[in-house]
């Protein structure tokens, strides 16, 4: 239990006042004339105690007793998800279209891959009440701007901010993946851990980078999902018979085959359109409902009411006795005069 205004407790000595005051007692000539009555002595003592209790309880209630905000653990259904959203300039462009004869110089940010990603990520976050989210901003550098949090408000605000303005420079997926892995380091294992990579390009990684990434992903028990936003019409991540020779060995494909060879759960989704993107998100949503340990924040709980109850009961008894005294005294006075 803690106090909001502990300095008010310095007022507690005021509770001895009832023992000092004599102002409701009748003045008598000589103390020794009073008959000794043990029952009255007990009653007198009780009344003093009640008065002290009332004062003390009121002072303590005003000092704001409460149980501070604390967290308790419960188990839920969900996963810990780190979102890696590509902030590079290419994400400002719309999805690659199959048949487009128009050349447009005007960029439509409403349909840009980034704003589409923002829209579906928002839906995704909203549909998963128990998940814990983190967010890595990356282009050429990566910063884990949002560490894993239960707050839907901050998660959504970060995703929304990701849709504002233009893209930054180029993409470096390796630094982003490393950052995502680092964000789980030192965290207690609570359940499924997902890295959700959304990007429109691939990258050829060096052997050293490959090693670092596979180490981080394995050490931290991560699953990897890649939503690949197609920027070349028709190109798939896996090789297809009879396709263009130009696509062979494309960075996207090399990254894909590296991910496949990793010893971690991995799945790629290819999205060439809004609908496909939505489907990919839905598929991921269905995949990961496992038991997850959750920290739930219990709000601070005020205990002032208990003290008020003490004050209420003791004051009730005190006033009752006072009224009883008054009735007795008035009757005595009336009979005398």
């Amino acid at each position, binding site marked *: 239990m803690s106090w909001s205004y502990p300095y008010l407790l310095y007022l507690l000595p005021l509770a001895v006042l009832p023992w000092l*005051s004599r*102002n409701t007692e009748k003045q008598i000539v000589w103390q020794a004339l009073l008959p000794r009555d043990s029952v009255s002595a007990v009653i007198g003592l009780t009344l003093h105690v009640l008065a002290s209790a009332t004062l003390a309880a009121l002072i303590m209630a005003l000092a704001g007793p409460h149980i501070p905000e604390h967290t308790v653990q419960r188990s839920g259904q969900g996963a810990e998800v780190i979102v890696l959203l590509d902030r590079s300039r290419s994400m400002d462009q719309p999805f690659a279209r199959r048949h487009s004869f128009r050349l447009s110089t005007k960029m439509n940010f409403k349909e840009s891959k980034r704003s589409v990603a923002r829209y579906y990520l928002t839906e995704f976050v909203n549909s998963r009440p128990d998940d814990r989210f983190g967010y890595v901003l990356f282009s050429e*550098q990566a910063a884990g701007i949002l560490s894993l949090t239960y707050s839907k408000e901050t998660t959504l605000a970060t995703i929304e*901010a990701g849709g504002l303005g*233009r893209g*930054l420079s180029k993409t470096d997926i390796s630094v982003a993946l490393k950052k995502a892995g680092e964000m789980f380091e030192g965290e207690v294992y609570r359940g499924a851990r997902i890295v959700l990579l959304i990007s429109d390009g691939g990258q050829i990684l060096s052997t050293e980078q490959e090693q670092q990434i596979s180490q981080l992903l394995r050490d931290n028990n991560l699953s990897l999902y890649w939503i690949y936003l197609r920027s070349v019409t028709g190109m798939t991540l896996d090789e297809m018979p009879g396709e263009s020779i130009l696509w062979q060995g494309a960075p996207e494909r090399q990254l894909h085959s590296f991910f496949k060879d990793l010893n971690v759960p991995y799945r790629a989704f290819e999205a060439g359109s809004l609908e496909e993107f939505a489907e990919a998100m839905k598929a991921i949503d269905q995949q990961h409902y496992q038991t997850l340990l959750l920290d739930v924040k219990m709000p601070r709980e005020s205990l002032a009411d208990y003290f008020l109850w003490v*004050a209420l009961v003791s*004051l009730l008894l005190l*006033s009752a006795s006072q009224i009883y005294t008054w009735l007795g005294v008035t009757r005595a006075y009336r009979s005398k005069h």
Partner: protein
Amino acid sequence: MSLSYPKRIFLTALVMLFGLLMIMAALWLPPVDREVDVMDSLFVIDITDSMNVQDVSFANENINRLDWAKEYTRQAILSMPCGSHAGLAIFSEARSLILMTPVEVCANYHDLMQMLSQFQPTMAWARSSEVSKALYTAIRQAKEITPQPTVVFLTDGHEAPPVHETLFPKFTDTPGEVPGIIIGIGGSDLMPIPKTNESGEIDGYWEINEVMHRDVYASSRGDAAELNENRPRTEHLSSQKKSHMETVAKRIGFEFISSPKSPQNLIKEMQKISEMRQQPVKYDLFVWLASIALVLLLLVFLPYSLFSKQHD
């Protein structure tokens, strides 16, 4: 004044009953609605190299400008009434990048601080520092956010590459449409600017020949001769550029506060210039009612006899 004995007892009983009533009200009266003025803000923090200069102090400790900006932002967010919203953004190159749109400050304090602590010079995506253009983009993006936040821009005002007074980047929006405040950071002496490497460590200082000392456009114009004439080459050094920030602030309709002493300076200014939102909060009257009860009972039990004895 003296009261007869029965009257005294009656009065005491009456006061006690009234106190009882107050305690009952404190227990059972439902909380009342009260309107509280809350604000929406967007903090934009300069993370360019010049912010690494150690020439500001906080609590008698010499710290760098970026740490000062972060600490000031933290205190400002802490001083806002619950229900207020704050968002975070960084500025590097020639634009502001919003990282979190405004969220409620009390419930999300922890996440806001976590993000704020991540702000490092390494997050910069380019190594220039065009303050005025960054302000323009902050304004443009603030307009896309509802409810529209007041922009708080924390910077030392150092433009790199420098801007010539007559060749200012054009501000195409209406000045004052988005309210905002520029917080000037830094000392008044010119200091060398530390260079940071990829991992954020300080690695030497910017040298005189590594930076531009003149506006790029001004130097390519015909009147360049006049411009080049004996101008001091000090752009590799940095101080708080007060007059520049004042000019920019006037142009875009912002306020300018130089090195504020307490977060209250900012909060007061924000209350003046931004449209406050009214947010109803539940307000429990129990404190007042219980205090009345306490005072009444203290009056009953005060040892009057100790004071009145002399009169006997």
